[in-house]
């Protein structure tokens, strides 16, 4: 366990080095979030009755989404893992006495978390100082906030576990670009990154809420905003745990299979 924590720490410190890049990103995300909110408020004005969430919930949803963008977005890609597979340095990884799945899982998780820690605070602070309808508000009570924290970590786990499946697919096909774009487009959409899930038409929504993608950003963001609360939130967390276990299990299985037949050509 100790070595995984150490790995986690190395990665974390490593990504904290690029502070200027993070600052530039902040302004962008802030502007992006504002535009999203303006768009939603136009729809709200068009027909408040058809709005499936409370408006303040939607605002919180979007701000939290921007703040935790790097935590949940599928398109964020761990290059060093992909390169290890496509360029063969995986040979070194395999001789190390570390379980490869766990190692990569930690690495990907830590990188996401580090990027996010840098970015989330300024956005959260500015967003909670905005004038009223556009302000980010705190969840109704402490319990809800704790549920949100638990759900966030589970969502991160699900995202990483799912992206592990994509890395593993690299063992079988060496060109990654197309597959990566297609999968991340679909999964981000189904996770509610473009339009929150409550805005989906009813029959579609019923199906989508059972998919693993609903266990990603959808859950923590809606718990934070108060759209899902109490017993429903607990049920949501159980749902996340189930998908996390399933995805990790599938990932390990596929990885063992892939590693058994991996051939590293000379070098």
């Amino acid at each position, binding site marked *: 366990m100790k070595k995984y924590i150490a790995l986690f720490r190395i990665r974390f410190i490593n990504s904290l080095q690029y502070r200027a890049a993070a600052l530039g990103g902040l302004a962008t995300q802030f502007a992006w979030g504002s535009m999203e909110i303006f768009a939603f408020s136009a729809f709200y004005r*068009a027909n408040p009755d058809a709005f499936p969430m409370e408006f303040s919930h939607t605002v919180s949803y979007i701000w939290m989404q921007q703040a935790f963008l790097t935590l949940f977005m599928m398109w964020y890609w761990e290059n060093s893992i992909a390169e290890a597979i496509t360029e063969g340095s995986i040979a070194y990884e395999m001789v190390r006495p570390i379980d490869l799945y766990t190692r990569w899982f930690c690495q990907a998780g830590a990188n996401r978390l580090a990027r996010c820690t840098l970015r989330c605070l300024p956005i959260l602070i500015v967003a909670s100082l905005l004038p009223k309808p556009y302000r980010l508000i705190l969840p109704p009570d402490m319990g809800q906030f704790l549920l949100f924290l638990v759900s966030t970590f589970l969502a991160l786990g699900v995202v990483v576990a799912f992206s592990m499946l994509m890395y593993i697919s690299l063992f079988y096909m060496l060109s990654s670009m197309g597959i990566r774009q297609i999968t991340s487009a679909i999964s981000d959409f189904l996770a509610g990154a473009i339009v929150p899930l409550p805005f989906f038409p009813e029959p579609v929504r019923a199906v989508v809420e059972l998919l693993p993608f609903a266990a990603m950003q959808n859950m923590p963001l809606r718990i934070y905003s108060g759209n899902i609360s109490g017993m429903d939130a607990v049920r949501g967390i159980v749902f996340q745990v189930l998908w996390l276990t399933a995805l990790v299990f599938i990932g390990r299985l596929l990885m063992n299979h892939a590693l058994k037949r991996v051939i590293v050509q000379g070098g």
Partner: protein
Amino acid sequence: MKLFVKFLAMQIKSQMQYKLSFFLTLLGQLFTSFTVLLGVYFMFVRFNRVEDYTFEQALLCSAVMLMAFSLAETFARGFDLFPRMISNGEFDRVLVRPRNEVFQILALKMDITRIGRLVQAILVFCYATPQSGVIWTWDKILTLCLMVICGSLIFCGLFLIYAGFTFFTIEGLEFMNILTDGGREFGRYPFSIYGRKILMFLTFVVPLALFQYYPLLYLLDREKNVFYMFLPIVGLLFLLPSYAFFRTGLKRYKSIGS
């Protein structure tokens, strides 16, 4: 011009060497913007209309934006990759050749996988143009062409500014994305829905609304004034300061020497 066509042919040939990878990337692009449109569709299923625009009319907006952006991206991709060109010294080679720098950057780095979005924009046009309730007379068709052509030139201007910044910072600047990628993403609705201040900004500072919102009003017969039809051309004025900015950057360029 002959040289440009030759370069284009070269790029197409070299990128077609990896056919599977080419088609997968194309498909990936298609999916990415398709999900965005699906999101728009879901919103309209629920709300029917926003600020008196129907789904088809919003689609017309998306299609113009997608088309303008993807044309710009296909041809002006070099400016997007410009930080890399500077940091690996490729730009130094460009400078010693007896041709205009902008021309070379355009010609060297065309990326035809970007036509994925173009294909989609065309499909969306095919669906939205008959459904949008516009009676397509010659002046309307001309307006639409102006929107797309001037739009892609204005996006090129934005890319040029992005590249110009690189002279000062070496690294690419992420905040330009809100204007380029952001313009494309948020241009899926008419810009007026974002409120008056944003519309003013997009009219007078970065003239994205000049080729999207105002000509759209003319298309939908909400404005009879012919002036609205030619606003995209007015937007081209934006190219002057962006080119000037690029030249200024170029003058003080020092190779980073690698």
